[in-house]
């Protein structure tokens, strides 16, 4: 699963910021939060488009061209 590998990468490549102060929300903390946020989002965003949406767009396309051609006649 490339998604998982990517997530792991995101996690393991997190710089060690153990020097960052535990309080105060310094830059290290916020950088780590930013990476988690991206990992959370990309977990879904990196999935291929489910077929149901392609099927839906096909159906919408067909319905529209059908109504167009019938209204022209």
């Amino acid at each position, binding site marked *: 699963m490339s998604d998982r590998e990517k997530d792991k990468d995101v996690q393991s490549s997190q710089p060690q910021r153990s020097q960052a102060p535990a309080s105060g929300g310094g830059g290290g903390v916020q950088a780590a939060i930013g990476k988690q*946020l991206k990992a959370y989002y990309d977990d879904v965003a990196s999935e291929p488009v489910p077929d149901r949406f*392609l099927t*839906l767009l096909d159906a919408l396309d067909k319905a529209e061209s059908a109504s167009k051609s019938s209204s022209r006649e």
Partner: protein
Amino acid sequence: MSEQADFRRELIGIIPNLRAFATSLTGSYDRADDLVQETLVKAWDKQNTFQPGTNMKAWLFTILRNEFYTQMRKKGREVQDVDGVHAMQLAGHPEQQGHLDLQDFRRALDLLPDDQREALILIGASGFSYEEAAEICKCAVGTIKSRVSRARTRIAEILGVEGDGDYGPDSIASQIIGVAPAA
């Protein structure tokens, strides 16, 4: 015809982002995809209002967000799951098991007020500018900035508090805060 094909192609390219944003709004993968489906139908119906060359991603996010809040208003608070259910549904996604760090982060995200969470996602994950996010959320740029800032502070607090021993050594909190989890 080719304009239609372009519209369709661009639309499909944005679906992964719509799904991710919808997941963050609804807290449920199934409801997220239902929301994306409704968004696509709406977008298709009003595609003549979209101006080619302008930001389709922002346009679609606006439609999705409006649809989400319209549904919330219609169905009342029942739509918004209590936090526990929210987190459980996400944890139930088969591909997510074993992602302890990500689950901790999700739980923290779920504890944020809706307006802060969506601002954080739009800026920190979806890649919008503050100006674009302000347009999507129909508020001032300064409001988005302060929501994002409060969201970040709050997440750091939540993870800091929760990292005190409940989640073991893999906890995001220990990575983020840089303290060793209590042994």
